[in-house]
């Protein structure tokens, strides 16, 4: 219980040890992350709810299959009315109507925006569905999103189309820089917004090494035309200080 396990290792404990544990809260985060669907039946529906609540308290990170299975166990006898007591990431597999007994749609999306969107693969239909419902809930009629709404959307901004990126100017950039990857048309829109200079970062010719570090998540998107405008000193200083332990590939560097 006091050792750091990998998820695969921890899965082994769910065969016998975990299901027999009367008090799940005695189990460590590292052990609980091993939850498997194969062990779910042994744990049972009621105890699964208990287990899920403990997982929220202990901030246990689960993968897509684990979450989807845990949700099935938790909702076996209907959707609980206290969804806020369950791991936030479970909400990624629900809709605002499932959350109605717990809270309104904006509360739902405040939680969804803070959940770990990486759990859902880029092509998962749930992502697009959540985004559409979020835009409807936040009453965003056109394609312009302000900073406050961008903050609520959280990781969902990563799925916004190019038209939203263009219309929202700089207000999405901070959130977009947290996304791991972009579609080609999103990249182009980001480049257009950045090179317009109408952002808090100003035109690329005025950027400093600090600006580049703030934009680091967007650096691979910049492209030669923007890179050439950045003052050489800013770029080399950034390259020396940040490229060293950067996750960028050789080609991107």
């Amino acid at each position, binding site marked *: 219980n006091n050792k750091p396990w990998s998820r695969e290792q921890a899965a*082994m404990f769910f*065969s016998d040890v975990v299901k027999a544990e009367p008090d799940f809260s005695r189990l460590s985060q590292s052990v609980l992350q091993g939850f*498997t669907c194969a*062990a*779910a039946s042994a744990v049972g529906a009621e105890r699964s709810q208990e287990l899920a609540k403990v997982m929220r308290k202990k901030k246990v990170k689960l993968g897509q299959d684990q979450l989807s299975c845990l949700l*099935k166990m938790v909702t076996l006898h209907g959707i609980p009315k206290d969804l806020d007591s369950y791991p936030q990431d479970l909400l990624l597999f629900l809709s605002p109507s499932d959350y109605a007994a717990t809270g309104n749609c904006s509360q739902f999306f405040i939680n969804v925006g803070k959940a770990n969107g990486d759990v859902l693969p880029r092509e998962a239909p749930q992502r697009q569905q959540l985004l559409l419902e979020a835009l409807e809930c936040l009453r965003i009629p056109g394609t312009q999103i302000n900073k406050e709404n961008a903050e609520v959307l959280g990781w969902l901004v990563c799925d916004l189309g190019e038209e939203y990126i263009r219309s929202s100017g700089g207000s999405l950039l901070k959130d977009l820089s947290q996304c791991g990857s972009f579609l080609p048309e999103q990249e182009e829109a980001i480049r257009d917004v950045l090179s317009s200079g109408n952002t808090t970062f100003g035109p690329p010719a005025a950027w400093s090494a600090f600006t580049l570090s703030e934009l680091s998540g967007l650096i691979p998107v910049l492209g030669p035309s923007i890179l050439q405008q950045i003052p050489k000193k800013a770029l080399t200083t950034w390259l*020396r200080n940040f490229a060293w332990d950067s996750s960028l590939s*050789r080609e991107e560097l």
Partner: protein
Amino acid sequence: KRESAGCPAGQEITDEVLNDDAMPLYYTPEELRACLGNSPLENHLSQFVTYPFTIPQLAVIKEHLKERYPNGYPENVLSNLGPFLTMFTPEEISTWNLSSVDLLDAFLKIQPQPSDSLASAAINRYMELGNALNATALGAIGTKYVCLLNATQLEAIHPPVLKMVSLDPSACSQETKNILYQKAKEAFSDQNHLPAYYELILPYLGGAPAADLKVLSKKDVNMNVTTFVTLRRDAVMPLTPREVQGLLGVNLPELARWQFQTPVRDWIVLQQQAELDKLHVGLTGGVQEGYINLVSPKFPALS
């Protein structure tokens, strides 16, 4: 000496230059060629390879290393090649002295990771030199390269080795999956607790025959539908609706979303609709009562 002679004054590549994060990047290929001469490159290789050199600069460095080690690269160079690796061919690698498992491990872990053709050349060379696919070697090969192993190499794996590595052969050929499944089944056969056995065998299930799936269907394993659709087609077809229900457990309702895709579709059309209805998940397209499926005999084409 000859090379150093062409190096512009003050540009010699010394310890100090090699320690400066980005400095050698600004040398032209010609300057690099002239200034690498007697540089203490080997002492800084692991750091040096992280610089984003251009292809012509990399070519100069490769040439420099080749001149320095005409009889083959020593271990500390082979395991620290980094991006220089892209400059080598599989033919060159097939002559290297990859004589230890640690060296194979270090080679396959080079960042960015070797391409399939380079990794394959290294694995073949390692085995050609009489080395075994033990846990360290298989761990180094890992999921990324396991599909490159041929049937002979796979058969040489001693099953207990699979207990010490984490592999996912789902992207491999059917033959590879079949061989690895049998090895894994043998390796984990001493695991008495079912959920644990299931978790261990899960990555290998793409090679499981129908008989083994039928056994699993009685064990409450709650198989994911995404796993189910990657099972062997010939292993899925003989399963009854009850057995599929047993395999999928709480995940059974998700099968409806997959019912128009193979192999689920192919399986549905072989089942009695009345039996599918008993699953209560809305599967349609089974054989209606009073109908039977006739399999047309296939005759050899007339010459």
